[in-house]
């Protein structure tokens, strides 16, 4: 069982919300990954829907490049839409 591939698990906690990554597990195929995810990650009513994705299918950014990838955004506060005067009646922004 140690040779089983790794799967990433995404759970949607409520209808209308998005699936969020919640962890990973080992399984021999997609069906078993779903069942394992049900047992490992939804025991406390965490979800209404599960996605599983082979971890090998995920392409990740290289942590060594995080400087050039993410740092340039740091001093560009004007990209945040925070410079508008909002009317008081507008509640959820």
């Amino acid at each position, binding site marked *: *069982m140690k040779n*089983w591939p790794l799967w990433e698990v995404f759970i949607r906690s409520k209808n209308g919300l998005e699936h969020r990554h919640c962890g990973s*597990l*080992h399984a021999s195929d997609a069906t078993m990954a779903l*069942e*394992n995810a049900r*047992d490992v990650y939804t025991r406390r009513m965490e979800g209404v829907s599960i996605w599983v994705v082979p971890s090998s299918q995920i392409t990740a950014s290289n942590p060594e490049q995080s400087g050039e990838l993410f740092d340039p955004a740091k001093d560009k506060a004007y990209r945040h839409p925070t410079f508008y005067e909002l009317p008081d009646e507008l509640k959820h922004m």
Partner: protein
Amino acid sequence: MQYIYGIADNSLILGQRLGELCGHGASLETDIALTNISLDLLGQTRSYYQYAATLLGGNATEDTVAFLRSEREYKNVLLVEQPNTDFGYTIARQFLFDIFHLSLLEALQNSQDETLAAIAQKSIKEVSYHTRFSSDWIKRLGDGTTESHDRIQNAINDLWGFTDELFHQTEADKAMLSENIGVDVMLLKAPYYKKVSAILEEATLITPQLEYFQKGGKQGIHSEHMGFLLAEMQYMQRAYPNMNW
């Protein structure tokens, strides 16, 4: 009362057996899956025993029913008390019980006894999942490697002798059947073997042919494993009577 024991003790003892695997499962994922099943079964047991305790009256509680009976007073079938041995045996035992359990509950939900019908109805969802889990694993192991195939076939062969007892009618069964409370277990037998054989066939396994079957659990005559199981299960209540947490 004996009728409730006949149903509930199966869930208690199998739940206890699966609980032994907590932290010892074949992998993290199957460990948690099997202990989830254990907790489902113990939850069902609680519902039955709470009902039994109200029928018994006096100082009876779900705990006295669960922990303070002697071996002969447990009416579970021999199948569920068999040891975990290895993953193959654990799955084979689960599979052979789940198929029966589901069909029993499906019939029990039509019981004239409202409480039993309600417990059955609530348990069906859980047991449907158990059945899917164990059937899937039977197929995976049977149709897996030579090693897994041989081991699961071996486990099925060994445990097969305990399946016939599931369909033995007890005195309590007869009494409850006449009041439309109980289930006619004999009617479940043919569909059971049909379903089990179909899944075994799909798993490339051979359905054993046996003439002689083990029996006795339903009368309280248990196998040598039962005493050890009860000793562990009842230890706390025996050592510290009335203890709580």
